[in-house]
Each structure stands twice: as C-alpha cells, then as structure tokens.
C-alpha cells in the first residue's frame, strides 16, 4: 500500500493514495490534441524569424560573407555577424564552474568545428531568413582537421565526467591478472552519437527594456537563467523562462547552448521578438554529442570463475577548446566483485563541438564494453553468462567496500531470466535457428545507474477551501514530471491529486534543480515532500493550539493528514477538515517550504545505485548479416516507484536506446573535412517502430530507506545499460561472431564472418 511517513516531522504523518498509482499523463490530453505549446509554437506580435548560417569547415576562419546579397533579399531585416553583434557582458568562453561550457556566439571569425554558427539572418519570414542564410556563401581559410581517436596527441585528462578521477586503483590488478587461471583482453569501440530529440533546440526571445522573456526547452531553467544573466549583464530575476514541455532532451538541453543565446542576441539587436529554431543538421555541432571511445578491458578469473582482476582503460575525445570526457569506466567500479579493479583514461582533442552528457553518459558507453567482456569471460570459463554474473555478484560496492543502500539485482536476474526462459539456452553459439532459417541468439546484460540527487526547492499552500497548491520549477521532457511530481505533491498534502494545483515549467517558481542524472523525481520530489510536511505542520499547529478544535492538545500524540483532514493519531475519529481549521483561525491560506539535497551522511555510508537485468533475443540472417531484435525482457529495481505507467515507459525508452546503441546509431565523420556525413534522421539511424519487438519491463520491488525520504532511485537512463550489451551478446550467441566495434552493422558481421 502506498503510504508516506515523512522522516523529518514524525509528529505529523500523512497518508496518501496517489503514489504508486498508474495514473495516465496529466499532460496527455494537451499533447494528443496538439494544444501543448512547445517553444517554437509561440508567436508573439511583431516577431521576426532568425536562421543560423553554420560553418561547412571544421577548422579555420571565415574570411568573407556576402552580407550584401543576404540583405538584398526581400524581407531580410538584419544579418548578425561577429562584426556587428550586440556586445556581451561576459565572455562566452569563460568557465566559472564545471557545468559551464564554452559556446560559439559570434565572438570571432574563427571556426573550431563543423556546423558552428557563423552568422544569423533575421527576417520577416522564415523563408526569407532561410534563403538569405544560404546567400551568405561564406569563404574560409581552412586548417587541417583532427578527426578520429588517433588524430591527435593523447593525454591523460585531469578529470572525467564532472570531477571524477581519471585514474582509480583498488587492489593489485597486475597481481590479480598474473594469478588468474583464465584471462581475456578485448578492445571495443563506440562511435560518436547525437542526442537528436525530436524537437530541435528553439527559442522565442522578447526583450522589454532590460527584461527578457524566453520560451525555450530547458532541462535546467535556474542554471540557464544564471548563464543568460551573466552574458547579458542583467539580474536573473529579469529573465522569465517558460519551458512547460520539452520535445525530448536526453542531456542536450541541460545547459543553455550557443544557438539559444544567439536568438536572444538577435532579439536585442533588432528590438523585436525573435524566433530561432535549429534546423536538424544544426543539431550536429553546437549542442553536444556522446564522444566516441576505444575501451580495452582485461579480466582475470580463478579456476572457479571468480574474478581476480578488472582493468578498464578508456580512450575518448573532447573538443580543442573545452573539456568533457565520457566517464565510460565508471560501471567497472560498481558492478562485479573483484579483489582488484583499475580504471584509467586518455583522451585526444578533436575539431568537433564539445561532447556532453547524453542519456547515461559514461554508463551506456562503458556498459556495452564491460557486458561484452563479461560475456567473453563467461565463455572462456565455460560458464553460463548468468551463472558467471551470479558467481561474481557484488555484495558490497567493489571499489569502495561500502554496503549498497539497497540492491535487488538478484531478484532482477531471477525474474528476468524466468520470464525470458533463459534456463533452456544452449551454452555454445550458433545452435538455434527459426523456421525461416534465421540464426537465433540469446544474450544478457546487467544494468546499473547511480542514484543521484541535486538540490531543489518547493513551495506548498493549503488554500481556504482546503485544496492545495504545489510549486516547483520542474521540467517535463517526457519522463512524466507533470504526473509523478503531482502525485508526490498530493500525498505530501494529504489530498487527492485532483485537489492539488501543481505548477511547474517556468523559472519564476522555486528552483527544481536540473532534470538530468535520472535524479529529477528524487530531487524535486523530495523538495515537494518537504514543502508538504512544512505546510501540514503549520496547519496542525493552528489546530492543536486552538481550544475549539477537536485536535486541541493532540500535540504529544500527533496528527495524521488524510483526505483533506487532520485527525488525531490516537483517535482517528477526532479530526477536522483543512478548510475548517483555516476558517476558524481566520487565515486565508498557509504556506510551507521544502528543500532537498543529497544526505552527505547516507552518501558516505552507502553506495547507491539502481540495478537491472536485460535479456535479449536476436535473429540474424546467415547470408546477409541483417540483425533484428525479436524479444527484450528487462527487470529493473529502482527503489520506490511513483507511477508504474510512466516508469515502464522510461524503461522501454531506455531499452530502445539500447537497440539503437548496439545496432544503429553512429555519426560518420569525414576525416578530411571534419564534417558529419549523416547529420539527418534518414542517415543517422535511430530505431523506428518496426525495429522494436514486443518489449517487457518488469518492475522489481525494492525498498531503500537511505537514498532519500521517499526511497526513490532514478529510472530514466538505466535501461540503456545492460540492454545494449545483451543485444551484442545475443548476436555473438546467434552467430559465433564477436563484433567489438559498435554499432553491429551487417557489413561488420559479414566482414568478420569472411
């Protein structure tokens, strides 16, 4: 039974029936009727259209633009270039903190990657702006480009991800490998990938003096507000961001990006509202990507298949002008028990845009390599891959020795394997065929993702009529924040979800932190939970201090908030409605505040991760090497589930990203020009409906008393991990061919078969 017992104020418990319910999306009707307004759907009076011209070279400088031709086009109002752009109050190349990334907003004529903005055309119509951007016909001075994992001098980055060490050692890996009975070493490569949300970045910017109103998709409005304020020399409160719906984010809308700043600059320049929407090809440069990797994994086991050593080395890339290093070896710290674990990194700088967080940054990339290697090791030990994983099950976090705050991975393995029918899998590869002669293979992988939390605030109100309001500037990029957070809000107020006005999606609300790291529900949810507790405590104080209230003197026993009433804990027949408490006190409403952050004590005592197990079936055409995923079963344990309908959708989405990672997604870069050769949705392949078989996601029960007061872990990213490796392992099981370069495309399979 869903029930909430707040930890901070044990005198006032609240019982709710909203958390745990599979409510349909609160924003569903708006979205299916086309009434949900995304950034680019806004059209303020007097608005102009801005279109970026982007660089077709990857390194050098722009020597000429035919501004005259562009300006001569009917309807063109202005062409913004480095020569005439409005001044900025802060350096866009400044880096005050690791969450700030350098951006290209026409500060100079230099070009440091392909598709970098080099000018912006502002016109009365979209057609005019688009045509005039083409008329700029840029000329360049080009320098040789560095593209590819071997194209520049490698170095050891000072940190990977955000502040993670680039070298970690636990135990003695050389000794562990030397003592091993079985040893494998394998190198895996993953390509550059692009987020490609269906909604390209877009902004509608309108200035009113020094006040700025913008509609733009954002996974982190407060951070965006801060960056915009610094760049334009205005106070953050002068900026109003509206981002009620994001058309997908996946990390590329976490931080405000250069093109969005250009839209604001354009609006300032022309003194009218401006809409700037990226064309799809513009998404392959200035808004981040997942960096390519080459990962070498060495494993050793004793005679019984127990791991003696894990060595995970990652080579990755960043841009020439900023630092983001895909933290791909992180999964090796937490997943399998081994007396020795070493992870290390090297990197090269390339003439690309700066890589960024992309759904499961590091985890997805590292997981496909580690899960492949584990499968190879199981084979080397002649063990079933599931038995091998269970043999090396980590009872404590291997790299730190900390206990897990909760870990129901054994249940995930058991329930997933049972549902899939794993027990009947033949050990050797190339043993199964279907009636059409297709090779059939079964593979599995372990899923893992850290349970993170950022900081957030929320404000709660109980109104005169007894209904509630909950406010936090949360972001819904499809994960279901409008729904899941409203459910938490309702339970925190002891009300039904229909009695609570949940407000989110704008920057004038309390900061809900960033929607990333699979941490938004935990973070914003905990702040909401705290705000609800605070307002209920105030309401209880009003009642308990009033001799006329049936709750008078209940202080020692405490009260319970339920169904819009406070009742005595020691005698639930005595209580009164919120509205009555307020009316008698002559108070129009009561307000409470809540905030959340990771509990440092719990963090230092426990390792906190969600886990899962994914089982995949593939069919491979023995002649043509075409791979189809025919069945996927994932079982995941991620603490308390707020809304199983939304959570299942998150798992499905992650599993589908796993299909894309294993079999389809790759940016193909031209090593001569440095340009992505497939910057569009026809040639950069992502799964379509026909690529996705019957999926099954099992929500494995898990109680976590330590992660946060609500016991929530994240679900948004975990399902890519495990899935991609499971598919790769199933391809091996079908064919006997181990493809170590991803994605596993038919040409690679055929080449290795020959």
């Amino acid at each position, binding site marked *: 039974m869903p029930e909430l017992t707040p930890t901070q104020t044990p005198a006032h418990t609240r019982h709710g029936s909203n958390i745990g319910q599979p409510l*349909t*999306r609160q*924003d*569903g*009707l*708006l*979205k*299916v*009727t*086309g*009434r949900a*307004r*995304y950034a*680019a*759907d806004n*059209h303020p009076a007097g608005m102009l259209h801005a279109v970026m011209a982007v660089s077709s070279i990857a390194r050098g400088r722009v020597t000429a633009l035919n501004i005259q031709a562009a300006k001569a086009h009917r*309807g063109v109002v202005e062409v913004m270039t480095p020569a005439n752009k409005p001044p900025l109050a802060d350096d866009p190349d400044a880096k005050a903190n690791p969450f700030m990334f350098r951006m290209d907003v026409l500060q100079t004529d230099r070009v440091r990657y392909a598709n970098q903005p080099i000018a912006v055309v502002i016109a009365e*119509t*979209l*057609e005019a702006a688009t*045509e005039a951007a083409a008329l700029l016909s840029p000329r360049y001075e080009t320098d040789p480009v560095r593209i590819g994992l071997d194209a520049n001098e490698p170095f050891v980055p000072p940190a990977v991800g955000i502040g993670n060490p680039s070298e970690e050692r636990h135990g003695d890996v050389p000794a562990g490998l030397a003592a091993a009975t079985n040893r494998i070493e394998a190198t895996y490569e993953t390509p550059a990938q692009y987020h*490609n*949300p*269906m*909604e*390209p970045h877009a902004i509608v910017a309108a200035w009113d003096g020094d006040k700025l109103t913008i509609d733009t998709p954002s996974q982190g409005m407060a951070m965006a507000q801060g960056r915009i304020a610094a760049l334009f020399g205005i106070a953050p409160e002068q900026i109003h961001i509206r981002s009620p*719906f*994001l*058309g*997908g*984010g*996946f990390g590329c809308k976490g931080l405000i990006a250069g093109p969005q700043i250009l839209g604001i600059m354009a609006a300032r320049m022309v003194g009218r509202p401006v809409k700037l*929407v990226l*064309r*799809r090809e513009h998404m392959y440069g200035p808004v981040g990507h997942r960096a390519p990797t080459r990962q070498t994994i060495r494993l050793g086991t004793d005679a019984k298949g127990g791991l003696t050593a894990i060595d995970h080395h990652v080579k990755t890339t960043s841009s020439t002008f900023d630092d983001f290093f895909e933290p791909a070896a992180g999964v090796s710290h937490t997943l399998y028990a081994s007396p020795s674990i070493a992870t290390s990194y090297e990197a090269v700088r390339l003439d690309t845009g700066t890589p960024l967080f992309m759904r499961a940054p590091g985890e997805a990339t590292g997981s496909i390599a580690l899960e492949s290697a584990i499968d190879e090791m199981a084979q080397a030990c002649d063990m079933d891959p599931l038995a091998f994983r269970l043999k090396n099950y980590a009872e404590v976090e291997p790299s730190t020795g900390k206990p897990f705050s909760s870990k129901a991975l054994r249940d995930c393995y058991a329930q997933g394997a049972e549902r899939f029918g794993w027990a009947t899998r033949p050990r050797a590869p190339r043993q199964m065929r279907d009636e059409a002669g297709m090779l059939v293979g079964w593979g599995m992988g372990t899923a893992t993702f850290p349970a993170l939390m950022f900081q957030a605030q929320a404000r709660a109100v109980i109104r005169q009529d007894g209904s509630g309001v909950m406010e936090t500037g949360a972001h819904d*990029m*499809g994960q*279901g924040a409008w729904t899941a957070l409203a459910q938490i809000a309702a339970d925190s107020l002891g009300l039904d979800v229909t009695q609570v006005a949940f407000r989110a999606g704008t920057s004038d609300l309390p900061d809900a932190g960033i929607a990333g790291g699979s941490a938004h529900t935990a973070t914003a949810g905990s702040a909401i939970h705290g705000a609800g507790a605070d307002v209920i405590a105030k309401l209880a104080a009003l009642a308990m201090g009033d001799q006329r209230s049936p709750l008078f003197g209940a202080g020692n026993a405490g009260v319970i908030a339920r169904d819009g009433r406070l009742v005595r804990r020691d005698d639930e027949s005595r209580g009164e409605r919120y509205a009555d408490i307020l009316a008698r006190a002559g108070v129009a409403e009561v307000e409470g505040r809540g905030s959340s952050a990771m509990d440092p004590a719990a963090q230092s005592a426990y390792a906190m991760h969600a886990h899962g197990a994914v089982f995949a079936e593939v069919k491979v055409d023995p002649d043509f090497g075409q791979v189809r995923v025919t069945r996927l079963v994932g079982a995941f344990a991620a603490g308390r589930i707020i809304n199983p309908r*939304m959570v*299942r*959708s*998150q798992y*499905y*989405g*992650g*599993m*589908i*990203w796993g299909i894309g990672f294993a079999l389809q997604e790759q940016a193909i870069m031209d090593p001569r020009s440095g340009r992505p050769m497939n910057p*569009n*949705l*026809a040639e950069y392949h*992502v*799964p*379509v*409906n*026909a*690529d*996705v078989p*019957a*999926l099954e996601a099992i929500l494995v029960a898990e109680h976590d008393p330590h992660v946060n007061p609500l016991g929530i872990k994240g679900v948004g990213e975990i399902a890519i991990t495990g899935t991609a490796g499971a598919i790769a392992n199933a391809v091996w099981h079908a064919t006997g061919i181990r493809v170590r370069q991803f994605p596993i495309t038919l040409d690679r399979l055929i080449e290795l078969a020959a």
Partner: protein
Amino acid sequence: MSLSITLTVNDVEHRIALEDPRATLLDVLRERLDLTGTKKGCDRGQCGACTVLLDGRRINSCLALAISHDGAQILTIEGVANGDQPHPVQAAFIAHDALQCGFCTPGQIMSAIGLIQEAQAGTDPERVREGMSGNLCRCGAYAGITEAVLDAQKTLDQADRKQAP
C-alpha cells in the same frame, strides 16, 4: 508578388495570400494559421512529426509546397477531436502511454488515423509497426503506439458495425 490560395483546414476555409511561393504547407499551418499542433522535427520528410491528412491521405507537410495544394482539404491534429471528446486514437494514446515528450505525437496520431483508414494493417502488430515506421519517436514510445493503434482500430470497427444498418 502575392499568390492567393484556399485551404480547407479542419473544415474551416482559409483564403491565404501567400507572400512567398516557397512556403511549405507545414510552415503555412504553423506560422500563418497558428495551427502549431503539427510539428517540425526535420523539415525534410524523414521524421514524420509534420504528418497531416491531405485529401484523406497522410503526407509529410514539410515536403508539400502550400501553393501546390490550392483547394485541398486538410485535417490536422487540432481537427481530430469531437469538441471535448477525444478521437478514439487520441484516447488510446493516453491509455497506452503511447507518448512521452509528446513532440512526435500529433504526427503519430495523424499517421495512425491514416493507417486505420487505409485498412491495410489489420490486427497484425507487425504490420502496424511497419505502417507506423515513418514516424520517429526518440523517447521510444513505440510499444504503446502499436498497442494504441490496435486498440483504437478495434474501437472504430465496433463503432462502424453499430452504425451499419
């Protein structure tokens, strides 16, 4: 240069003085008629977010020049519901959680309505998946989309049978 065309969108006739022959049907809907439910994901017919029904057929409106469709009957996502009553496909999308971010959803729904009218997919999930594969969903709501299409088709079939004499 002004080019006048007439489009009937969701049963409402619009006389449009096009100032530019390059305007796509999608940009006319979005930027001139404020019918922004139809989305632009790629502007080159690769993602399906801009799917509308043109004279009953599903098309990518980003690939259609408005000027070539003078006199056409167009159905967009805004014209699908019956007042406050969602279309069976819309209701099924909500029930099966066939959407996450919602950006591809109008295109998916228009494509689903088109697919059901084409009556080619039947009750075979494989054929529904194939028939819906012109509409990309990056969030990965495909399982729900397939279920929703099959479910809505059943609802519409039953309604048809009731109406039949």
